């Protein structure tokens, strides 16, 4: 392989796009802004595709060093970019899906103020995410890690005049920060033990010491898990993701479905040599994944905002990915990451298309009957719904089943994990089809403007009133092709995307698993070993998915008054789910409020005002008092000055003579 791959272009071109749009985008017409943003995204995508075609000729991992960053005696860190199979997969997803979403945003955000700002932030996000994926050491990865959190904050709070959006942005950032704290502790431990943060160095050191089991590696792994739960919205740090729906829908699609939230999964997969040495950490990952998966799915059952359902669905699917990594089937987790990127991005974009058609309406209770009115959106979203529910031959089927199968054969409590995942598959099917029914099928429930205004997305106007888009009141219409094009492409990918990972049990060769094998190791079972079990489990999963569909059909089509009756009958349970188990409130009461009180009354009043200001004040008063005394010397009278001078001279003379003349004794 001759010539350099110029990996550095991949993150830096979007960064250049960010700079141009950020600095002068305000003055440019919208066409220019879109052009710059799209160019800044298609160039990395083209570069990645080009690398893909050259991939078989490369020696891997391919490293590109761009200079020294930190160079102290014991610790070095460089700007090194690395390419291997795992990062190749991630790059394709990030640049590809990212590019499609950029195209979509041109249409979706066409009427927004701050258009240039949106695209600038979006490009900034791409830069950080690509840095995260391409980095060869933990430190550069952390830069990307933090950066995507920053971009997420900026984009969630895009409608900055809306209070709830601002709060959601802050919540996302703060919760992410808690995770980042864990990540940082892990980094410190790594530096302490290995003296370096380079992946290559650390993993080869771990490989050379098979006697290192548990101990500090467990500590590192657990802290990394904390970081991952923050970024990938797992228990206990998932609370920011539902609120993050305040941001524009393309943001939800790109950041909170396809890319940023998968950074945690990517990180676990990348650092799997460390996790391999700590069964405790792996089990933690698996159980967190499984429990989050179930938990979030239950919350998604009763939500009324279309984007909220999808948000909880994202948390739940991320739980699947975590589960996959937790049972050491890293390639299965990554495979699900890939398919999830396709269908979840599609779901969000299609939801955005629905919202756009309805002029800003997001509440599913007033939707319905949209199948005939926005057919393309309907059909693409249907593809996505089938994919996420795991029906063959759509993409989600193969990836989810791989994870569930690996969970089942995992020796440490795998059956429980499988069971939780299996039940969740049923719940997933339920809430997705419920969404599908409420939105597209049945009769239109679009009524008065009151309900419409309650759920309307607010656009960042200079007057911060909630205004429904005036120009869409002339009826529901399909979105423009600039928005539908990406939907179609993603729908196609959702259908065929699973074929890269068909296991041997079903006749193919699990291409993606083998592709990732040099990086992630082989899956702990030989493919094709127990194909009967695998087929049986897949069938069970499909069965429970169909069960969910049937229940929804029954509840929402055959007997439409049933949901209401169930809600009133099981009021306690319903309210528990609707209020998200009051987790936010619990966090607020247990963590946030005591912290705030402590800061306000003890740290502010006592320490800040009392000790610190008091010390300063006391120092000042002392100086002032002392000065007042010394001031009396300055009487203006020359004679008194002369007197003090005489005394001073005498003292000096005595001090010098009797201090120094010990060297020269008089004779």
């Amino acid at each position, binding site marked *: 392989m001759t010539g350099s791959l110029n990996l550095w272009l991949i993150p830096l071109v979007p960064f250049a796009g960010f700079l141009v749009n950020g600095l002068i985008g305000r003055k440019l017409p919208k066409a220019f802004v879109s052009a710059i943003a799209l160019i800044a995204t298609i160039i990395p995508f083209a570069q990645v595709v080009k690398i893909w075609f050259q991939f078989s000729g490369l020696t891997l991992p391919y490293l590109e060093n761009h200079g020294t960053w930190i160079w102290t005696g014991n610790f070095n860190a460089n700007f090194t970019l690395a390419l291997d199979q795992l990062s190749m997969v991630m790059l394709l997803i990030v640049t590809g899906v990212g590019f499609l979403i950029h195209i979509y945003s041109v249409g979706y955000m066409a009427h927004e103020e701050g258009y240039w700002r949106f695209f600038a932030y979006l490009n900034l996000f791409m830069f950080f995410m690509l840095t995260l994926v391409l980095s060869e050491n933990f430190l550069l990865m952390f830069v990307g890690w933090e950066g995507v959190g920053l971009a997420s904050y900026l984009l969630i709070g895009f409608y900055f005049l809306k209070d709830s959006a601002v709060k959601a942005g802050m919540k996302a950032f703060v919760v992410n920060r808690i995770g980042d704290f864990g990540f940082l502790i892990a980094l410190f431990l790594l530096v302490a033990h290995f003296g370096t943060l380079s992946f290559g160095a650390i993993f080869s050191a771990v490989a050379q010491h098979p006697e290192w089991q548990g101990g500090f590696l467990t500590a590192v792994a657990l802290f990394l898990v904390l970081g991952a739960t923050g970024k990938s919205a797992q228990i206990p740090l998932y609370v920011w993701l539902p609120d993050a729906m305040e941001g524009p829908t393309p943001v939800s699609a790109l950041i909170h479905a396809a890319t940023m939230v998968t950074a945690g999964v990517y990180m676990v997969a990348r650092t799997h040599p460390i996790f391999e040495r700590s069964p405790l950490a792996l089990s933690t990952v698996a159980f967190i994944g499984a429990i989050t998966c179930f938990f979030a799915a239950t919350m998604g059952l009763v939500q009324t905002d279309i984007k909220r359902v999808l948000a909880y669905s994202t948390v739940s699917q991320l739980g699947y990915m975590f589960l996959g990594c937790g049972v050491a089937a890293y390639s299965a987790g990554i495979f699900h990451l890939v398919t999830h990127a396709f269908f979840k991005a599609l779901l969000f974009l299609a939801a955005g298309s629905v919202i756009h058609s309805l002029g800003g309406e997001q509440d599913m209770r007033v939707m319905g009957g949209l199948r005939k009115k926005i057919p393309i959106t309907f059909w693409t979203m249907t593809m996505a719904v089938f994919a996420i529910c795991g029906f063959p031959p759509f993409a989600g089927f193969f990836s989810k089943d791989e994870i569930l199968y690996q969970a089942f054969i995992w020796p440490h409590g795998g059956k429980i994990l499988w069971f939780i995942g299996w039940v969740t598959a049923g719940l997933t099917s339920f809430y997705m089809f419920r969404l599908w029914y409420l939105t597209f099928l049945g009769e239109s429930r679009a009524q008065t403007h009151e309900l419409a205004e309650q759920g309307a997305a607010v656009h960042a106007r200079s007057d911060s009133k909630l205004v429904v888009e005036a120009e869409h009141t002339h009826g529901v219409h399909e979105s423009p092709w600039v928005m539908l094009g990406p939907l179609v492409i993603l729908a196609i990918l959702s259908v065929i995307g699973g074929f890269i990972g068909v296991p041997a049990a079903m006749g193919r060769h699990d291409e993606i698993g083998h592709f990732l094998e040099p990086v992630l190791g082989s899956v702990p079972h030989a493919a094709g070993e127990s194909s009967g079990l695998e087929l049986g489990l897949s069938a069970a999963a499909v069965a429970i998915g169909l069960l969910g569909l049937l229940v929804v059909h029954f509840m929402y089509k055959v007997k439409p008054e049933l949901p209401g009756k169930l809600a009133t009958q099981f009021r306690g349970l319903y309210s528990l789910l609707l209020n998200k188990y009051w987790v936010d409130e619990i966090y607020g009461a247990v963590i946030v409020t005591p912290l705030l009180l402590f800061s306000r009354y003890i740290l502010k009043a006592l320490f800040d005002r009392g000790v610190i200001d008091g010390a300063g004040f006391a120092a000042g008063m002392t100086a002032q008092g002392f000065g007042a005394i010394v001031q009396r010397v300055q009487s203006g*009278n020359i004679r008194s000055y*002369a007197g003090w*001078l005489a005394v001073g001279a005498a003292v000096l003379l005595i001090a010098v003579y009797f201090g120094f003349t010990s060297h020269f004794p008089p004779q």
Partner: protein
Amino acid sequence: MHLVLFFIFGGLCVAGALNLLFQRHPINAALSLIVVMSSLAVLYLLLGAEFLAAAQVIVYSGAIMVLFTFVIMLLNAGREDRTHGSKAAYLVGIPGAAALFATLVYIFLSYRTPLGDAGLGNYLVTTTDLSKVLFRDLLLPFEVTSVLILVAVLGAVVLARKEH
């Protein structure tokens, strides 16, 4: 002989100084200071500094003290009253001066043996010797002092000018 001369002119110095101290009218003080200067010139001669003795008479008694006298006459300074203006000067200053004197005397007395005698003609510095150093090794400071005098002249003229 040397000793006698020393005591005469040393005594004149001290007497003049004490007179300066006790006289009320500044013109008397100025005149006694002239006496001190001239006696000091003789003492310089005894110590072999002939150029300095001449300079002392010409510059100090002849120019500076004349300047003082002119200013006293110009400003018509009169007798001064003996009142107390500052406590610090007496309470702190007089003991300070006494301490200074005591220390100096003590130091000089401790070193009297190593210092030895000043014989007449032991060490004579001719004008040639002095000028050799001044115009060769210390040329720069010498030139700088001329600038200094120029500045002083200008300053004196500016400061003492009548405001129009």
